[in-house]
């Protein structure tokens, strides 16, 4: 199997370029090829690393050694020493005072990159998902046994809290806190619901967990049930995931037979069982209250909140709703302890994140890496670069409900807090990489079409707002819009964010605001000049206007 052993970043801000960064970059590439390391070492340009005297700078991972200033003639020595012999190239290191705040995070991640780290997908693809024995051999149900025989429910919640695990469905809410809310809520019965209604465009990570390691979700839900005091769980699987459902059904049957589900688990008085509920095709059912409505046999229309499901969920009882990826993190945390988990990822976003890499890159697919990797690194290492050598224009994160990331944010670490500070969001982990031939109006139109189709229609701002926003974008792409229409578009975005009943309407505003914030000139060209700069939009209204 091909594995990336080292990542070499070359600074490419204006100062670096003036001081020969391009030549350093090319020499590095040639030298890496000449020494036969091209399959193990990735060389890529990185944006602004801050102002200092050590430019151009070369940063080598996973050791996070910073060299600078590097001259083209230094390259053979650097490659020979660091990449071939594995030791620091003497005399080339930048002095530590050169490390400005801007690149401090780069060295803070020392040793964590560029390797993949699998926790959620540790077993997927390695074990036979249809045989419980395979799961048992690979630490299966060990965490459940440990929790039931050695820990109190409060201790389980404590461990999850201390791990710093945050919800992987997109919102990043602290998982331990949510568990505590449900544990403390008063109710006759409590429920654990696994949200497997994975429908964010570009996202299929949960499917791979369900298909490749179904027992991990059963174990995690049972652990959660023990922690919060629930005896019943539901897995809500999207209707299109037939294989996932088959495997889950089989796994639940095996777990019941072996005594991991049912009455008196591990000779305690704790009972737990799980039902599968199949969705019937509705994106909105990924919203937790819509999902609960759907289990109850109704239209999947989100409820008004508060009250939240933690106190008033399924059948009006306290209910814990967790995403598949979130749950898959729980058994390893209980097995290895919160301190172990804290060592992976960043301080405020511990652990790994599963990303799907899609769009105009050479290799599409799925990776699990520690939190804090950057988009540029993902594209360079795992996407194997942009397709046909095209330039990167933007990436769209998290399915339809993420953000549009312009090139200027390519070097922002992808963790909950760094992204929040930059005003963007991680979403569900889909990374749709788009090249220079992508038109932002066309892209926004496709995204708004998605929201308009998937809006459940319950509240007016979303039902009408997404429809009207789509119409305006369509007019922009046809060359029939006026500048004032953009004002309407922005006020629609405000209405969507301010008055929609749930996250669907609220996030429908994101692509509108993002393209007008980052790509205003390109949008304006469609209106003022009646030209689509990338030549993608039909502009069929243009002739009519001219006539």
């Amino acid at each position: 199997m091909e594995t990336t052993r080292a990542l070499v970043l070359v600074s490419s801000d204006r100062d670096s370029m003036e001081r020969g960064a391009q030549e350093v970059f090319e020499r590095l590439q040639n030298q890496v090829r000449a020494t036969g390391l091209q399959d193990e070492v990735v060389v890529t340009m990185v944006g602004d690393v801050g102002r200092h005297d050590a430019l151009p700078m070369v940063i080598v991972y996973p050791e996070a050694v910073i060299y600078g200033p590097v001259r083209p003639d230094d390259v053979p020595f650097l490659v020979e020493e660091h990449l071939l012999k594995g030791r620091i190239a003497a005399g080339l290191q930048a002095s530590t005072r050169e490390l400005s705040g801007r690149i401090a995070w780069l060295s803070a991640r020392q040793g964590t990159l560029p390797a993949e780290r699998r926790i959620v997908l540790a077993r997927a693809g390695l074990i036979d998902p249809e045989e419980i024995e395979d799961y048992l051999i690979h630490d299966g149900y060990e965490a459940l046994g440990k929790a039931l025989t050695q820990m109190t429910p409060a201790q389980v919640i404590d461990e999850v809290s201390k791990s710093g695990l945050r919800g992987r469905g997109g919102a990043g809410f602290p998982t331990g806190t949510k568990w505590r809310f449900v544990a403390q809520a008063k109710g006759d019965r409590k429920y654990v619901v696994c949200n497997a209604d994975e429908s964010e465009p570009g996202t299929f990570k949960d499917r791979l967990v369900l298909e490749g390691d179904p027992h991990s979700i059963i174990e995690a839900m049972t652990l959660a049930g023990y922690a919060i005091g629930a005896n019943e769980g539901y897995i809500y699987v999207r209707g299109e995931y037939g294989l996932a459902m088959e495997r889950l059904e089989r796994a639940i049957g095996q777990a019941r037979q072996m005594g991991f589900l049912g009455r008196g688990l591990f000779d305690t008085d704790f009972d737990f069982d799980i039902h599968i509920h199949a969705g019937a095709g509705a994106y909105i059912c990924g919203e937790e209250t819509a999902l609960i409505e759907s289990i109850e046999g109704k239209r999947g229309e989100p409820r008004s909140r508060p009250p939240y499901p933690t106190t008033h969920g399924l059948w009006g009882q306290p209910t814990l709703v967790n995403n598949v990826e979130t749950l898959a993190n729980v058994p390893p945390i209980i097995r290895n302890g919160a301190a172990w988990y804290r060592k992976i990822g960043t301080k405020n976003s511990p652990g790994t994140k599963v990303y799907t890499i899609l769009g105009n890159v050479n290799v599409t697919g799925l990776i699990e890496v520690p939190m804090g990797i950057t988009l540029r690194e993902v594209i360079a290492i795992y996407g194997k670069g942009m397709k046909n050598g095209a330039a990167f224009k933007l990436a769209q994160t998290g399915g339809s409900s993420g953000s549009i990331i312009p090139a200027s944010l390519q070097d922002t670490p992808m963790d909950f807090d760094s992204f929040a500070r930059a005003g963007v969001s991680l979403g569900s982990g889909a990374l749709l990489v788009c090249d220079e031939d992508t038109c932002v109006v066309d892209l926004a139109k496709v995204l708004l079409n998605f929201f308009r189709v998937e809006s459940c229609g319950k509240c007016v701002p979303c039902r009408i707002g997404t429809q009207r926003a789509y119409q305006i974008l369509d007019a922009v792409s046809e060359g029939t819009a006026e500048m004032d229409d953009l004002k309407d578009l922005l006020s629609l975005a405000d209405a969507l964010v301010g008055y929609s009943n749930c996250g669907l309407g609220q996030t429908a505003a994101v692509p509108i605001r993002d393209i007008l914030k980052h790509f205003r000139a390109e949008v304006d060209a469609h209106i003022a000049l009646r030209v689509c700069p990338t030549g993608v939009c039909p502009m069929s209204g243009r002739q009519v206007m001219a006539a």
Partner: protein
Amino acid sequence: MSKSAQNGKDVHTVVQQAVSRHGATPDGLIPILSEVNHALGYLPAEALNEIGRQVRIPSSRVLSVASFYRMLSTKPRGRHVVQFCENAPCHVVGGREVWRALKEQLGLGPGETSADGRWTLLTTSCLGLCAVGPVVVIDGDIYGNVDAAKLPEILARYA
């Protein structure tokens, strides 16, 4: 009691089987609708009424639920249902061209069924097959990395 047949199957019997499998309770409604939809090809008014009667839910609510979900249909569909993913991941890797060609070759717009009852063309939201986009699904058969040139050969497999 209803005795008429759909797709050669007795509506009453199909509903009864589904109800006995999933239970005459509110949370059984969506699984029942899915199973009846699968057996009959769609959900005729007669089936909705029969489900309402057997599960003891007003048929108006049964219809309200049935019309909400994409995988349930209250209208008859063609022998072959072609679904095209219209979301961004498929769109940016050539989906736009495939969609244009698909409409042209079938002579249908989204949601339409051909006069001879052979085809129904539907758009769908993401199916989670994005690594192999653009994606077209015909009667549950998945085709990935589709381009316009491959379409005639794919469509010819469905008589």
